[in-house]
């Protein structure tokens, strides 16, 4: 199951889609809108996607995980548009016979989604908004953000 939608996500349906009798472990990640960022109150998020490429890249993430972890049962659902505080923007579910691979592959799936899938996030505060480049570099100046990301993109593109 690979879903890109502007409707609310159904995490139970995504999780159930990967459950099989041969799997003993299911790991599900939910990404939700947090009410704060860098000390400021966040009122909502807004996600914009390059839809055709986003779906293609979500499939690529799933295929690469299948190759790297030997896990078949991986589902990804991403929401676009406005996502209010506490609501879900991303669901990733991974099931496998044993838990170690399920945890690793699910975590890595989220990392890869956030690196190569062309979906952008805008944070809305009480007094304005900003496009999120990379939270890891939150306190660096903006040009540095974009530079770091351009390099990551350049590397990613070569895959």
């Amino acid at each position, binding site marked *: 199951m690979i879903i890109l939608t502007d409707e609310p996500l159904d995490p139970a349906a995504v999780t159930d889609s990967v459950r099989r009798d041969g799997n003993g472990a299911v790991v599900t990640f939910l990404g939700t809108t947090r009410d704060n960022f860098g000390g400021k109150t966040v009122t909502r998020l807004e996600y914009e996607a390059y839809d055709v*490429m986003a779906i293609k890249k979500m499939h690529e993430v799933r295929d690469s995980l299948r190759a790297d972890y030997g896990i078949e049962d991986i589902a990804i659902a991403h929401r676009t548009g406005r996502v209010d505080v506490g609501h879900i923007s991303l669901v990733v579910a991974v099931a496998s016979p044993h838990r170690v691979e399920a945890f690793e592959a699910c975590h890595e799936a989220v990392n890869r989604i956030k690196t190569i899938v062309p979906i952008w*996030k805008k944070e809305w505060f009480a007094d304005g908004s900003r*496009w999120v*480049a990379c939270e890891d570099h939150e306190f660096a100046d903006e*040009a540095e953000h974009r530079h770091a990301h351009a390099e990551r993109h350049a590397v990613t593109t070569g895959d």
Partner: protein
Amino acid sequence: MRFDVRLFALYRERAGASLVTVDLPDGASVGDLTSAVRVDYPQLAPPEVRIVVAVNAEYADDDQLLQPGDEVCLIPPVSGGRG
């Protein structure tokens, strides 16, 4: 060759447009395209920052040659991060 280049998110807002038209000579590359866009929209990104391009929904290197009919999009940094 004429391309309607799609802009998303940060780039769309900085350019004030979701589609910008670029005229390029035959045999132009992705790097030629971003150079042309930068002339018209210098506010998109500082010169030292690479603008990432997708051609036909795939990340493209600067030296990739463009073909008439290619779908070209500028890809701002994705959200990434520790969320």
